[in-house]
């Protein structure tokens, strides 16, 4: 076991958990203790030594208290052209006075909703950080979109995170979307301050029959952020869930994104871009579980890695014995822009059914020199030419974002990063 968990501060941290959700927390704590922080060679964290990172950068394992956030800060963080409702969080705590009242959607603190089945989707025994969050989160948010509600405007989950001396921020989000309801979430974080902090986030999403859910996320935290997130979704028959995850920075980031297709004719899409520089390390572990026949999943992750950055992709697809007529596609493509950048990619298909259509593939390569020369030979400078090619590479994912302001925002961030506007 890690030395970190034996420290007094860590023990005190666990002991000081809030008193609500007692049985949920007990389960979380037991699960955390039995799993322990990942050992150096732990299979699931083989390329992402998160324990070592936490030991070196999180000196003061204690919950980060909410910071004062102003209406100005909220306003300036808003995406250009965004028209929707905003829910504001400060170090994981909901800030109602800065948040919109969303018509037709129930939003409340988790502490007021103790019958919520926390941990029933993102199960604590599947990941030790989900367990840690479940044991010790401060308070969280409960969002319920009622049956047949069609929420036209996107809902922005805007988080301001920052802490002193390496504290811990543990957001906890529960989203339930009723049968036939439709909703789009944008998940965006802003890092405050320069100090290292640990962001350990859990989002559970429960999609009803024929529900349509989009979950778009931009990870553009500061270089001081060590992050693990567990986002897990259950959807029922005829439902559709689409996730687009854009990772642009962070010190060490681990995303566990899981989708359970629980009803026939359900469709799950997971798309992602990781565009990294410096020493950023981003690890996307995705998990799709086909348990029933006639469901479909599509997955496409693209990585662009510069400097000494590191990307990890691990995509698991399970097709259970009953899941005949499954369509499952998975693809991961990477471009390395420097000799020091590293990517580890591993698709994992486990198929027990025999009448299915599944495919997967991964590539790691460099920028196409022929194409680069062709563009330069037409008068385009090298930086812009590279930008055009990389943007084209990422474009296949960007076009999956249906919410226009968010897509434009993502495009702008990527263009800025690639050093040119075109």
């Amino acid at each position, binding site marked *: 076991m890690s030395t970190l968990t034996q420290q007094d501060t860590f023990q005190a941290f666990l002991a000081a958990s809030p008193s609500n959700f007692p049985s949920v927390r007990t389960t979380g704590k037991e699960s955390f203790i039995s799993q322990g922080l990942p050992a150096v060679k732990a299979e699931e964290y083989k390329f992402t030594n998160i324990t070592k990172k936490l030991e070196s950068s999180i000196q003061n394992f204690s919950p980060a208290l909410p910071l004062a956030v102003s209406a100005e800060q909220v306003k300036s963080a808003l995406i250009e052209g965004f028209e929707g409702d905003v829910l504001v969080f400060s170090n994981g705590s909901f800030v109602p006075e800065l948040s919109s009242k969303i018509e037709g959607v129930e939003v409340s603190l988790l502490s007021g909703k103790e019958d919520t089945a926390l941990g029933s989707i993102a199960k604590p025994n599947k990941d030790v950080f989900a367990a840690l969050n479940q044991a010790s989160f401060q308070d969280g948010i409960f969002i319920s979109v009622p049956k047949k509600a069609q929420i036209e405007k996107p809902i922005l989950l805007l988080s301001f995170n920052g802490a002193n001396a390496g504290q811990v921020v543990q957001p906890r989000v529960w989203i339930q979307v009723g049968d036939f309801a439709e909703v789009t979430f944008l998940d965006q974080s802003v890092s405050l301050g320069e100090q290292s902090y640990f962001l350990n986030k859990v989002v559970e999403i429960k999609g009803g029959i024929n529900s349509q859910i989009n979950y778009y996320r931009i990870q553009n935290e500061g270089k001081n952020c060590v992050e693990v997130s567990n986002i897990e979704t259950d959807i029922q028959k005829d439902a559709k869930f689409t996730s687009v995850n854009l990772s642009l920075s962070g010190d060490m980031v681990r995303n566990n994104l899981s989708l359970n297709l629980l009803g026939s004719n359900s469709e799950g899409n997971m798309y992602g871009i990781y565009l990294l520089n410096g020493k950023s390390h981003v690890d996307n572990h995705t998990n799709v579980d086909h348990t029933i026949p006639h469901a479909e999943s599509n997955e496409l992750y693209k990585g662009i890695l510069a400097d000494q950055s590191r990307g990890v992709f691990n995509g698991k697809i399970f097709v259970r014995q009953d899941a005949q007529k499954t369509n499952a596609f998975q693809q991961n493509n990477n471009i390395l822009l420097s000799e020091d950048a590293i990517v580890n990619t591993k698709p994992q298909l486990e198929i027990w059914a025999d009448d299915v259509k599944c495919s997967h593939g991964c590539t790691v390569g460099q920028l196409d*020199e022929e194409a680069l*020369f062709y*563009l330069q030979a*037409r*008068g385009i400078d090298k930086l812009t030419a590279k930008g055009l090619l990389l943007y084209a590479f990422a474009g296949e994912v960007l076009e999956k974002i249906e919410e226009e302001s968010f897509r434009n925002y993502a495009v702008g961030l990527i263009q800025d990063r690639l050093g040119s506007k075109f």
Partner: protein
Amino acid sequence: MLSIKNLHASVEGTPILRGINLEVKAGEVHAIMGPNGSGKSTLASVLAGREEYEVTDGEVIFQGKDLLDLAPEDRAREGVFLAFQYPVEIPGVSSTNFLRTALNQVREYRGLEPLDAVKFLSLMKEKMALVEIDQKLLSRSLNEGFSGGEKKRNEIFQMAMLEPTLSILDETDSGLDIDALRIVSNGVNKLKSDKTATIVVTHYQRLLDYIVPDYVHVLYKGRIVKSGTKELALELEEKGYDWIKEEVDSATV
């Protein structure tokens, strides 16, 4: 306009160009012919600035500037245009966005205002008509899924948009049917003026009926071994290259 002196170039240590000398003046058309593998595309690529070719000796002066000193994009901006023998397919990059970026960077270099969307589109229309290229092709990704002939036509379309001073056409005629050849040649001829020059690299005399050269050069084993007028091309058409090869090979023994 262009002065090439004693140009030597290698790829991965293997010498390909072994002392090229060529003078091109404004208003002229030069044809470069020669057997496969003699270094024609290498010469074109070296002029355009492809990095994998290492210039080991000699100089290239273009309008008073040392061309070999310039980055590929600056050569293009100075007015050198290479129509590629094998144009590259670039999925995800729209033809229009690409051309607009290119044109505006070239214009900026030449001290001109960028073209706004409206002016750009009307210029595109005008030049599309010149090479009779289908609008549908240009709404796709750059060269993606184009036939060989469509790619060649797109090269000439780009040339028309960028209005180069020196155009180097590397086997632009290969694979074209006679109609396409006529259209492409027509486009090239319309873009010619007494201020521009053209180097056409070709295998076939056929093209030279349409784009009439002032000079014809034969490139063999990395050197220009024979120069003449358009009659030389007809002679090569009739007799092939063997007699030239023999002349050269026996002289060097």
